[in-house]
């Protein structure tokens, strides 16, 4: 009965089963908000998501997506995959805890007594269950993101190194190390987080192979492990792609082979060379050298999952972020270039100004560093093979040293105000003290320890916090402490209000102390675990160097460090049992172990009593239905285009079109992405049944290094007036003057400020220095017949104007998204409907706020000026959509859990109905207004609505009263 191996085996799988069942029951049945719909699309249809990509996640996700009997079930299956991977993580956690605890209890690996077995198992169970039911890990376990997979791989790597440690056959043991190298290569294709367990791994190896560890040796090994991470991150990952780039340039540009030839050949060459060295070292019997080279080889093989990205991007899938078709774009994609440069050791503060340099002629100009070369692909034409043309160099920003400092924490100019708001004082140039205050106060305390304590002490609520006392803080449930921390009454109504009374934290600290006291093996283990804890937590904080006002809570990134802490929680049980046995020698050891174990088991059970309700995503369809609603708000005919802007009105729509095939005739175009030339090029291509954008500007206008922002009505010359003042003469004045002096001229078109003429004479001017908008008011000529046939709402008293006018007074530049929007409005000529999602800003790029008519969750762009709130709604269409097309995310179900983001989506939907009902009521159409209010009462459970703050419940009640429909309680 007391067979340790068997109990350990069964225990692990039992916990796997518990976790799998819990996660299986609480998994989201369809897509979730943020990046999930994008990842699910990338897995199910092998389309390319945001940098740095996750090809190995895509492969496994693709397999799971094939179990779905219907496309709408694909997200469920990918979420289930994550549930299973998370359960696997729990299994490995259990095994890791029992292994480490056993090593501290049984010094000489003798066979354990029943009391010892109970102690070890109780540690494993309590530790693993605490992690199962912890906030952050559970969150990622039930949705379609990469973090569950990434956690699994981290747990697997840690478990493998323990396996290696325990392996009796030392020659064979090295294979576990090789496997680790392979795993790390593969895991790059899931998430780079996995590299962070390298220091812990290296220390396990060092303690095992050094017969007696010394402080000096430990430090050298530690330094070596950091060097190893740096090598992988900065040498191997980009280096291999660089080699592929050289090969590609050589084969394509020099030897005139088609694209990809050089990439493939140089990759095969790398494999061949490594294999040769492997064989050589094998023959010469040098085990160490052989293991190292084999490790390098399998690392490269694992990393090669990135071929998937190149292959799919080359097929031009509709979603193909950054268009990663060659090693040069792959380099930027892997390096996450578009997110900008964040300083780490030394660099700019928010107050830094660009560095200047003096030219030979004495003038001053900006000083830039020259980075890697950039290439443009020129596809083969008859008589000319494929080639890459160097289009320039990457620009490396340089800053005036006066605005730079060591370890700069407040680095983003965009956030200058928020840094100062956070520190509560005005700062010209951050001092070392400000810098450290921000580091400790915001980055460490707010963006790490707060999350840590959510998991192990308690959480105030699930509302995102930007530092206020009311939302998202950690607390304990012990009123004295909480009152001291927050000083406000605690409201427990929110489902994300979870109180653990700090017990898991306490248990973890007991475990930490118990481990430390176990002489040298304990201290060695402590160092290993601490490294895992530190690297996957605080080290990430230091590396990310985050700014205030993050768009969402970031706890998911630190799951690895919470994993490490739960190992200490497990050991805390051993600590408690040991204490009981010491204090109560009268009890038998076995009784003490069972008693202590049961006592500790109460902690994870208490945790789950708190965390279940805010992690149970079953029956929730809001994200998916919102995506449907956006798309079904668009006109059925004419291949509509909808402009969207944020993650949450973009990715769900892409998912709906690509995976479920909803509205394949429509196109969701992200405005922010339009700043990238690659994206404009993709929008100009047809996708499914949606034709490409019919832009009049050529593709070459949107090359990535050109025409980012076009100057508006530039100053041409300055005139000195007799009174001493200076008058700026702008281009518009000159043109007007020219037209006045030459009546009847059409030098720049009949109306020189009409968009087509601006495109023809200025934007497409071969002389790049003349590319500008020659006016501060753009005219778009309107085709009245096309408008009349467009299907848009035309209020009776509306006269269709001759021109649509865009006022650019005060603007210095016109952004690329605005240029695309303008050209699209003109070229679509009202026969192809254009919409803006109601959640997207209507004036960020091009001010369309006076030209929008709401037809659903999207507003149509109309040529006339919308002059009243009533005219801004197409009541007929909105009514049709609300009654027949919209889906309401199963909000009837009063047991539904809604987090902050979901609540926002419900608010939008709910408000749309109220706006409509009010509009109908104002028009005197009480019959249909009543129908809408009945729909509202029917589709939204009052229990659910009551959880949502800032909802217009008053208006709902008022409308219900006026219309005589049932009241919500």
């Amino acid at each position, binding site marked *: 009965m007391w067979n340790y191996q068997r109990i350990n085996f069964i225990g692990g799988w039992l916990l796997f089963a518990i976790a799998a069942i819990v996660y299986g029951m609480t998994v989201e049945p369809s897509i979730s908000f943020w990046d999930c719909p994008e990842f699910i699309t990338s897995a199910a*249809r*092998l389309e390319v998501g945001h940098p740095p990509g996750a090809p*190995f996640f*895509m*492969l*496994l996700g*693709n*397999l799971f997506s*094939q179990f779905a009997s219907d496309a709408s079930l694909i997200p469920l299956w990918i979420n289930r995959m994550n549930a299973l991977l998370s359960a696997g993580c729990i299994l490995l956690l259990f095994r890791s805890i029992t292994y480490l605890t056993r090593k501290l209890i049984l010094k000489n690996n003798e066979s354990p007594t029943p009391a010892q077995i109970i102690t070890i198992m109780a540690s494993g169970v309590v530790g693993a269950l605490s992690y199962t039911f912890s906030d952050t890990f559970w969150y990622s376990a039930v949705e379609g993101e990469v973090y569950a997979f990434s956690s699994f791989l981290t747990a697997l790597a840690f478990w493998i190194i323990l396996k290696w440690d325990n392996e009796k056959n*030392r*020659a*064979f*043991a*090295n*294979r*576990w190390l*090789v*496997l680790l190298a*392979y*795993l790390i290569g593969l895991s790059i294709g899931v998430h780079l987080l996995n590299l962070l367990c390298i220091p812990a791994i290296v220390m396990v190896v*060092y303690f095992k*192979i*050094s*017969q*007696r560890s*010394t402080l*000096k*040796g430990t430090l*050298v*090994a530690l330094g070596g492990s950091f060097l190893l991470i740096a090598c992988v991150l900065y040498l191997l990952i980009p280096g291999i792609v660089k080699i592929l780039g050289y090969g590609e340039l050589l084969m394509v540009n020099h030897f005139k082979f088609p694209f990809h030839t050089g990439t493939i050949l140089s990759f095969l060459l790398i494999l061949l060379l490594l294999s040769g060295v*492997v064989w050589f*070292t*094998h023959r010469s*019997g*040098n*085990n*160490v050298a*052989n*293991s190292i080279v*084999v490790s390098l080889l*399998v690392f490269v*093989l*694992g990393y*090669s*999952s990135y071929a*998937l990205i190149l*292959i*799919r991007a*080359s*097929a*031009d*899938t*509709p979603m193909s972020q950054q268009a990663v078709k060659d090693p040069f774009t792959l380099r930027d994609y892997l390096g996450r270039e578009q997110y900008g440069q964040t300083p780490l050791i030394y660099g700019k503060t928010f107050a830094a100004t660009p560095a200047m340099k003096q030219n030979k002629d004495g003038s001053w100009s900006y000083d830039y560093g020259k980075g890697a070369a950039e290439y443009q692909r020129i596809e083969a034409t008859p008589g000319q093979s494929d080639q890459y043309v160097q289009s320039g160099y990457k620009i490396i920003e340089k800053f005036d040293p006066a605005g730079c400092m060591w370890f700069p924490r407040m680095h983003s100019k965009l956030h200058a105000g928020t840094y100062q708001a956070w520190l509560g004082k005005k700062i010209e140039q951050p001092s070392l003290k400000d810098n450290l205050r921000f580091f400790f106060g915001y980055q460490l305390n707010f963006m790490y320890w707060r999350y840590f304590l959510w998991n192990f002490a308690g959480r105030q609520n699930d509302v995102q916090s930007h530092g206020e006392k009311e939302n998202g803080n950690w607390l304990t449930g012990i009123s004295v402490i909480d009152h001291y921390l927050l000083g406000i009454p605690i409201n427990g109504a929110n489902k994300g209000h979870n109180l653990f009374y700090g017990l898991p934290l306490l248990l973890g600290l007991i475990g930490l102390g118990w481990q430390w006291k176990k002489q040298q093996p304990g201290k060695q283990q402590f160092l290993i675990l601490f490294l895992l804890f530190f690297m996957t937590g605080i080290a990430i904080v230091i590396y990310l160097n985050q700014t205030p006002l993050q768009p969402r809570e970031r706890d998911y990134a630190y799951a690895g460090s919470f994993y490490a802490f739960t190992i200490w929680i497990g050991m805390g049980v051993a600590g408690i049992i040991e204490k009981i046995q010491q204090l109560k020698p009268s009890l038998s050891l076995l009784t003490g172990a069972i008693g202590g174990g049961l006592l500790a088991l109460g902690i994870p059970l208490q945790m789950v009593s708190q965390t279940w309700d805010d992690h149970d995503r079953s029956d929730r369809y809001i994200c998916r239905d919102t995506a449907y609603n956006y798309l079904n708000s668009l006109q059925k005919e004419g291949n509509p285009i909808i402009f969207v802007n944020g993650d949450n009105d973009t990715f769900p729509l892409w998912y709906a079109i690509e995976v479920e095939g909803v509205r394949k005739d429509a196109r969701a175009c992200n405005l922010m992405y339009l700043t990238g030339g690659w994206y404009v090029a993709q929008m100009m*291509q*047809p*996708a*499914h*049944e949606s034709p*490409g954008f019919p832009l009049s500007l050529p*593709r070459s206008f949107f090359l990535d290094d050109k025409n980012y922002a076009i100057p508006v009505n530039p100053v041409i010359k300055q005139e000195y007036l007799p009174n001493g003042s200076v008058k700026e003469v702008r281009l518009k004045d000159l043109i007007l003057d020219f037209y006045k002096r030459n009546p009847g001229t059409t030098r720049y078109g009949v109306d020189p400020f009409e968009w087509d003429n601006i495109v023809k004479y200025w934007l497409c001017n071969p002389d790049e220095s003349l590319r500008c908008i020659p006016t501060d008011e753009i005219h778009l000529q309107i085709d009245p017949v096309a408008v009349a046939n467009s299907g848009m709402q035309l209020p009776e008293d509306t006269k269709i104007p001759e021109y649509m006018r865009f006022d650019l007074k005060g603007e210095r530049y016109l952004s690329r998204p605005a240029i695309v929007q303008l050209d699209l409005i003109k070229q679509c000529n009202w026969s192809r409907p254009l919409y803006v999602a109601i959640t997207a800003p209507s004036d960020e790029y091009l001010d369309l706020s006076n030209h929008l008519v709401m037809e659903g969750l999207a507003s149509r762009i109309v040529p006339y000026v919308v002059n009243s709130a009533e005219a801004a709604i197409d009541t007929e269409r909105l009514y049709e959509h609300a009654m027949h097309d919209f889906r309401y995310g199963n909000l009837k179900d009063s047991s539904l859990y809604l987090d902050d983001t979901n609540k926002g989506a419900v608010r939008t939907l709910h408000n749309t109905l109220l706006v409509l009902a009010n509009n109908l009521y104002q028009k005197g159409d009480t019959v249909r207004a009543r129908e809408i209010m009945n729909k509202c009462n029917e589709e939204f459970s009052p229990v659910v609505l009551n959880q949502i703050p800032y909802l217009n419940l008053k208006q709902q009640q008022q409308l219900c009263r006026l219309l005589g429909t049932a009241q919500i309680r």
Partner: protein
Amino acid sequence: MPIIRNCSNSMIMQKTAFTKTNYILIAFSYLWVIIGFLLMTGSGSNETEFNAEIFSIRRVCIAPAITLMGFLLLAGGILWRRKK
């Protein structure tokens, strides 16, 4: 290097960890990966035409499954040893 000197003989052995069979298994597994990637390739969409072929069963169902199998087999190839 004191670390190396401190090392027990366990690391530095005359016998290498891998046998010929391991190399063959690794090569064989990676062959599957390559076959999968090859099956994934084909004609793409272009500026004027959307090519539905990019989502064919071969390219987005069979090919990734074969590639994945190759990657998983490879781990087996690293660990494989003859039972005594």
